[in-house]
């Protein structure tokens, strides 16, 4: 398997596409459909060139190459992490066996479903962020938006490659279906709920890239453990790119908090809305919303499907190989906290294998906590006595054991009326959203930035903040 990416090919790749006529034809048939989709559903704002990162090889050196690129000409392609010829299955009933280079017939439907669901989320966020370019707070942010968008596009390619290469005609049909469903479409919505929500403003974008893309990181992390080696290698490379999206989210929220802190100090009031800043309470509401919608993406706390996927070796746990247990989990137990009818929390002991979604979610929650700590440190350093918190995992949930219960951010189970009365304190209201939107004016001048967000501490690839990251018409 050559590591070097063949950039002369119509579709850049490191999978020897030129030698596989069937796959080449299939992907070349899909490519114009993808371009059409990008034209229809991709970023609205037209640019003359964006300073983008492109992979030229998957090794340490070559995967991040920077240059100005006309966005629709971005070379989307197929890059798999290098193959480890000794890799063995790390968990489930096939533990210890060689990993699979082909899809076992027995797991074909399950693997296809997993890939389709993962694939469906990738273009969805591009669609959700379609209009954001029109209100970017700086050229730096605009560039980051496009970077995230083209890479989500490439992640779609990654999943489509798998569908085309390993799942025959049905795989090709599913690959086409990924372009036919659209975020929020009344006729053919995206499969998962969170990907049909609007990303209407830049604070939402930062929150989305922090919380929702982070779910993506954990899902990819479990697929990286897959016994189906091409899926594992694809996800491994996607994870490298995904890390940047997290950075956009983490530093994005940082910068909003930093700017709000500045305005609070400057005007000596928490009510900084009139001064063009976003109040801390409103930031907390955004955290509450995006965090909980993202928790829903982990699915139900108890899941037979997840257990089946694990036993079969299709989808592992986060950092499976570092776990110190038998990697089969048939004899382990774990406790599940759940709301009771009488308004208290009870716990139930269940087989660990049935709680894999909860296991993954716990890893995710711990990770989300680090961002909150960061943001609180910014406030503390500015001498502001206010802290952000992640709400209780039972709060505002549509999926799993908490759905159907009313849980406040601090984890109290309340009745419908109390919940409704508190809702506007906990989640963004229409007025809140309108206010944030009112701040969203585009700033396309080099070195300038919108009133509600601080400039980044570092530019991209060592470039300064006032670098011309995006050439506009």
């Amino acid at each position: 398997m050559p590591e070097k990416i063949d950039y002369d090919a119509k579709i850049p790749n490191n999978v020897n596409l030129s030698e596989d006529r069937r796959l080449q034809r299939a992907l070349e048939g899909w490519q114009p459909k993808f371009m059409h989709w990008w034209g229809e559903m991709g970023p609205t704002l037209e640019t003359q060139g964006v300073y983008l990162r492109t992979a030229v090889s998957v090794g340490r050196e070559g995967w991040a190459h920077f240059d100005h690129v006309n966005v629709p000409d971005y070379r989307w392609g197929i890059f798999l992490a290098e193959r480890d010829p000794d890799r063995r299955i790390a968990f489930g009933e096939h533990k210890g066996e060689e990993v699979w280079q082909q899809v076992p017939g027995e797991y074909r439907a399950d693997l296809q479903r997993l890939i389709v669901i993962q694939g469906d989320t990738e273009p969805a966020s591009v669609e959700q962020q379609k209009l954001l370019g029109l209100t970017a707070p700086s050229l730096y942010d605009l560039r980051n938006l496009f970077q995230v968008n083209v890479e989500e596009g490439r992640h779609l390619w990654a999943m489509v490659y798998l569908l085309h290469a390993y799942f025959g005609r049905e795989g090709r049909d599913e690959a086409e279906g990924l372009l036919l469903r659209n975020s929020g479409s009344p006729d053919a919505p995206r499969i998962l709920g969170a990907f049909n929500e609007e990303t209407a403003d830049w604070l939402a974008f930062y929150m989305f890239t922090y919380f929702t893309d982070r779910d993506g990181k954990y899902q990819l992390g479990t697929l990286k453990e897959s016994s189906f080696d091409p899926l594992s290698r694809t996800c491994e490379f996607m994870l490298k790119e995904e890390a940047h999206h997290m950075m956009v989210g983490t530093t994005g929220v940082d910068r909003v908090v930093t700017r709000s802190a500045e305005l609070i100090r400057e005007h000596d009031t928490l009510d900084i809305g009139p001064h063009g800043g976003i109040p801390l309470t409103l930031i907390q509401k955004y955290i509450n919303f995006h965090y909980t919608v993202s928790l829903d993406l982990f699915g139900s706390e108890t899941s037979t499907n997840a257990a089946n996927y694990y036993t079969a070796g299709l989808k592992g746990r986060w950092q499976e190989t570092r776990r110190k247990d038998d990697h089969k989990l048939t004899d382990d137990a774990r406790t599940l906290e759940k709301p009771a009818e009488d308004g208290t929390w009870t716990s139930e002991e269940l087989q660990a294998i049935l709680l894999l979604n909860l296991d993954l979610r716990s890893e995710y929650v711990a990770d989300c906590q680090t961002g909150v700590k960061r943001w609180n440190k910014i406030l503390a350093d500015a001498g502001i006595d206010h802290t952000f918190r992640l709400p209780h995992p039972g709060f505002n949930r549509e999926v799993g054991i908490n759905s159907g219960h009313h849980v406040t951010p601090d984890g109290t189970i309340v009745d419908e009326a109390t919940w409704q009365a508190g809702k506007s304190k906990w989640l963004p209201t229409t007025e809140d959203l309108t206010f944030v939107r009112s701040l969203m004016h585009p700033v396309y001048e080099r070195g300038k930035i919108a009133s509600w967000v601080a400039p980044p501490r570092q530019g991209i690839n060592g470039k300064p903040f006032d670098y011309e990251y995006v050439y506009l018409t």
Partner: protein
Amino acid sequence: MTTTTPVTFDRRPDEYRHWRLHVDGEVAWLEMDVDEQGGLVEGYELKLNSYDLGVDIELYDATQRLRFEHPEVRVVVVTSAKDKVFCAGANIRMLAASEHHWKVNFCKFTNETRNGMEDATEHSGQTYVAAVNGTCAGGGYEIALACDKILLIDDNSSTVALPEVPLLGVLPGTGGLTRVVDKRRVRRDLADVFATRPDGVKGKTAVDWRLVDELVPRQGFREAVAKRAREIARESGRTGEGGIELTPLEHRHVDIEVRKDQATITIKGPENDPGDLHEEGANGWFLAMTRELDDAILRLRTNEVEAGTWILKTVGDPEKVLAHEQTVLGGKDWLANEITHYFKRTLKRLDVTSRSLVALIEPGSCFAGSLLEIALAADRQYILDGPPIDDEDSDERATIRLSEANFGAFPMGNGLTRLQTRFYGDDDHLAWLAREKDHELSAAEAVELGLVTDAPDDLDWEDEIRIALEGRASLSPDALTGMEANHRFVGPETIETKIFGRLAAWQNWIFTRPNASGPEGALRRYGTGQKAVFDRKRV
């Protein structure tokens, strides 16, 4: 799983937990909205509109009411009130936890309900349309298959599926396999692909393979379905108004007595002369008796699993039975039609009941015409040739009567009458019987005509019957079930006989095999995250 409280089958729409029935002129909407916590038995949650016997009992009640209470309804739209889920089928945890007989009885009842939906379409012009608005798997698709038309939401992700073979190691138990090829005429190779795919088939492919009839866009789905329903309603021949209310069941005409391994069902003939069918409504003898018999069969089947022999008796005046029968079979309007078909379906329920059925014809009984069908449905018939056992001076003698009702009104699942089935291929005998209708037949004549198994006299009667019943009860109940089902359905196969005979037999076998029900079987392992272990030998 065992229940301690007996299961009842009497339901009322305002007390449904799992369905919403809403009638809008000639179109009725039957929306599935299963209450997760509303399982009939403890120990499982009815997630994703999955169903158990309790859910199906309500569906059965709704289909009955639509026929009797809503003669104006020409189309019944079956859909889901939940978002993105039509129906996930029978609840697997319920099946996995159930005892064998419960699983089989559940399948039987759901089959009868599905057959009843098709019967409404065929014989009452009340066409069922499935509006599949989300995931539709297993028994969920089997509900859709029982409908005349299947409309599938075109959202690029909803599928129809029969995942039992790949996911559970069992068969779709409610006619899925049979209806796919026999009713919808899906090509057998495509049916094979379909039934081995756990993820099912969506969109255009589902239409191309004939698994569904039409795709309907997600936006405006309900309006489009309503419009289609009105179009189909226009093609229906059903006319009628002034439905009658199916009032709560009373046990006035059918009496049940259970003694450990034996149940006796006694049907009481009418006491009065027939009145106007519509005026009498649910109180009219024929309908009331049918409802009670239907209920009796269901309750005995579900709650009295060790009562392996059922003794069928009647008490009353044969003349009055025939007079009531005349108002139903001679009546030409929708209500007469409904009662006829309801009695037909109830007899069919008896035909497929896995109990030894023995009819005892004694002086004072009224096995005439329609009620004689009950005796003909039995595996054996004994007529007492002599005076009543407790009154040897009486001149009363047991008789039976053939009427027009025995010659086509109540066909069995194989499409034949019970007489055609009894005398299969013997047209001369059937012609002879036709000449013998409308008059009393004595015990000797009944023997000569081949209408009874034996005619013991009053000296032998008690011993003969006791020995016959005790002998029966000593045999393997499984072997009896198999033998009876074989003998009852001679001649041609129909969709119904395939479902009840062929499919149920296979399912029965598979349910007891270790590959499905063993500790490492697919049904037991389902939901544990562990994979089933199969014995790979093909049997």
